[in-house]
């Protein structure tokens, strides 16, 4: 994709000449706004809070907002091209792609009437997303509050609890909140568990769309859940309906493991429906990377031991998971691995030299996919099809 010359020139060098100071040199919203927010939190709590769109975790976010924060949740409709475009227009050119997607989501949420948006904190650039997005959105003229979990991150749960109480809702009943927080975690876990089954069997359904239908039902049931019992029920139901679906699975199907960056490798909007594309080719898909394995049960040193032939230290937010998973897939005799990341994701780029060694040692092909907001659907189809063909032919000839 060749860009027009003028645009690149702008990225390569730009000059800002603003001789009169119009605001203080700080990213933080001014004291007045902060005070106002505090006042509002105390007396009129925010009406509607929204999350950005992230994979299939929307029901868990809803549960968190409604049950833990005890405020209204604003669900976002399916993302459109417009969403991404707004995000891209208002971000610096070479910031990582998830930033642009999330910014687009927030704009949409605020347009739909949200008065609070919620952003995670986290390792790498993610920790800085919130602040920069908040300032970008304010520059665009929006008035809102942002619950940014990058604040208070150094104090862990206590810091976050303080943040939530002071910003969102001072009336939260803390023991109740803790119970519901556990529920949120449970929901995340069960979402991931059902997804694993879905990925492994979805490619072999006899009637097209049966798995998707069951999945949608699951999501809807979870959206209505109010406690852990409902969540467990929903999981039980979906697993029943999954098992009831007639499948036609060959004895030795093509198995592909997906590894990569936390956002792009899972989120179907960012990776242009990677899961579904692979399943429609008739692939058994495995993906160790998900919220459960990265956050809820992440034991990095333990995981690293499994990959100690390749790495000595933790290499970044999801790097150990990427490498350990790739090695496990290779050892388990998978046919191929797909490494998906957004353009410019430094930690995942740094995993590539290691993955190349794994590919060499176990003779397992790895397809590297880099997504940015302009990645074309057809280009991806060609690459995936070719990858599948290659694996299928290899399998046929070797067996």
């Amino acid at each position, binding site marked *: *994709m*060749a*860009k027009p*010359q003028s645009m*690149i020139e702008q990225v390569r060098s730009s000059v800002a000449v603003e001789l009169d100071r119009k605001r203080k040199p700080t990213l933080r919203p001014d004291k007045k706004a902060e005070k106002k927010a505090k006042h509002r939190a105390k007396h009129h709590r925010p009406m509607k809070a929204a999350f950005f769109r992230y994979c299939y975790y929307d029901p868990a976010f809803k549960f968190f907002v409604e049950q833990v924060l005890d405020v209204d949740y604003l669900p976002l*409709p*399916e*993302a*459109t*091209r417009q969403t991404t475009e707004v995000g891209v227009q208002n971000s610096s050119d070479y910031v990582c792609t998830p930033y642009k997607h999330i910014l687009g989501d927030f704009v949409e949420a605020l347009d739909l009437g949200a008065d609070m948006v919620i952003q995670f904190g986290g390792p790498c650039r993610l920790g800085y997303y919130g602040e920069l997005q908040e300032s970008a959105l304010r520059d665009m003229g929006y008035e809102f509050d942002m619950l940014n979990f990058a604040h208070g991150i150094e104090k862990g749960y206590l810091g976050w609890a303080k943040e939530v109480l002071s910003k969102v809702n001072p009336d939260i009943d803390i023991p109740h909140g803790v119970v519901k927080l556990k529920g949120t975690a449970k929901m995340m876990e069960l979402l991931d568990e059902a997804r694993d089954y879905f990925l492994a069997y979805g490619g072999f359904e006899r009637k097209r*769309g049966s798995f998707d239908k069951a999945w949608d039902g699951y999501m809807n049931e979870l959206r209505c859940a109010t406690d852990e019992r409902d969540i467990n029920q929903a999981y039980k139901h979906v697993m029943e309906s999954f098992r009831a679906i007639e499948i036609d699975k060959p004895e030795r199907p093509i198995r592909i493991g997906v590894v990569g960056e936390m956002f792009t490798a899972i989120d179907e909007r960012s990776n242009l*429906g990677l899961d579904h594309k692979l399943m429609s080719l008739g692939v058994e898909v495995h993906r160790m990377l998900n919220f459960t394995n990265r956050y809820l049960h992440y034991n990095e040193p333990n995981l690293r031991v499994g990959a100690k032939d390749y790495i000595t230290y933790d290499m970044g937010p999801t790097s150990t998971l990427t490498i350990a998973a790739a090695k496990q897939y290779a050892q388990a005799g998978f046919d191929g691995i797909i490494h998906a990341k957004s353009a410019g994701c430094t930690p995942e780029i740094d995993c*590539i*030299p290691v993955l*190349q060694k794994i*590919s*060499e040692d176990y*003779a397992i*092909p*790895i397809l*590297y996919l*880099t997504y*940015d907001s*302009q*990645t074309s*659907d*057809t280009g991806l*189809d*060609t*690459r995936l*099809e*070719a*990858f599948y*063909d*290659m694996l299928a*032919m*290899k399998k046929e*000839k*070797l067996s």
Partner: protein
Amino acid sequence: MRSAYLGIDIGSISTKGVVIDQDRNIIARSYLWTEGNPTEASKSVVRELEAQVAALSDADEIAIVGAGTTGSARRLVGAMLGASVIKNEITAHAVGTTSLHPDVRTILEIGGQDSKIICVSDGIAVDYAMNTLCAAGTGSFLSSQAHRLGVEVEEFGDIALTSTKPANIAARCTVFAESDLVHKIQVGYAREDIIAGLCNAVASNYLNNVGKGKKIASPVVFQGGVSKNAGVVHAFEEQLGVDVLVDPDGHLMGAYGVALLAADAGPVKEATAGPFASGKFDFEALLDFDFKTREIECGKCANHCEIICVYRDGDIIDSWGNRCDRGAVKTTK
């Protein structure tokens, strides 16, 4: 009656076609510019192939019973021809090349807009990579630079070989390469040195981008449009330190590969309409129909999928680009 198979590779720049007989020999070949019109280009290609087959001494004995398409317009032309196999170009190239050169270990390919590398072991493609988004170092990049230098891209290779000290040109990105090139022209570098520099840059850019981390084992086959450029071939040989084989039929490899796949799939059966309705490829039937494509933006959900519909005489015969059930187009096949 001997059965034969048709393979068409419709790329962004050129359209290639072959006919193979049941012994997998190429009996007709054709190569034309696509010129932005894949349907017309492939009709012309098929017309030429037809003429070549008709000119054979045993023409009456030969019946084309199957067809395959590959390349960027594979779906459209595939629908048009009623092809039995529609495959992506990577697979087609791998199949074609490995069957002509069974001992090949590495296939380098630089085409009009993309470049790829395929690693082969024991006749099986075991690894491949394709260029990322940027078009730097591909055929279209070379021809636009040739235009800037006022030479025909066909002469590029020969001019490059006359250079004794190639200029150092940065070609990692089209835009940077262009500004570097302009700079070098203005500073007064000799033309052949700049051209040789460009050829070197194409090769090193390819090896640093597409070929990064891949084991490039000999024998190496180089194909795609850019392989006709002796300067780039020379640059590859120098940088890899091994001989690089360029097959005179290299540009046809995709078409040949997909023809082989069509042969594997066997004759087209049960076609009720289209060129294969009679069980044997009927060229007149293809010309009789009027093919049109239309891009429709589906408004049934927020996704706004762009659906491409192919019409034959006003009937929709195929569509793609749709992502959900709501936008499913019914074909009147």
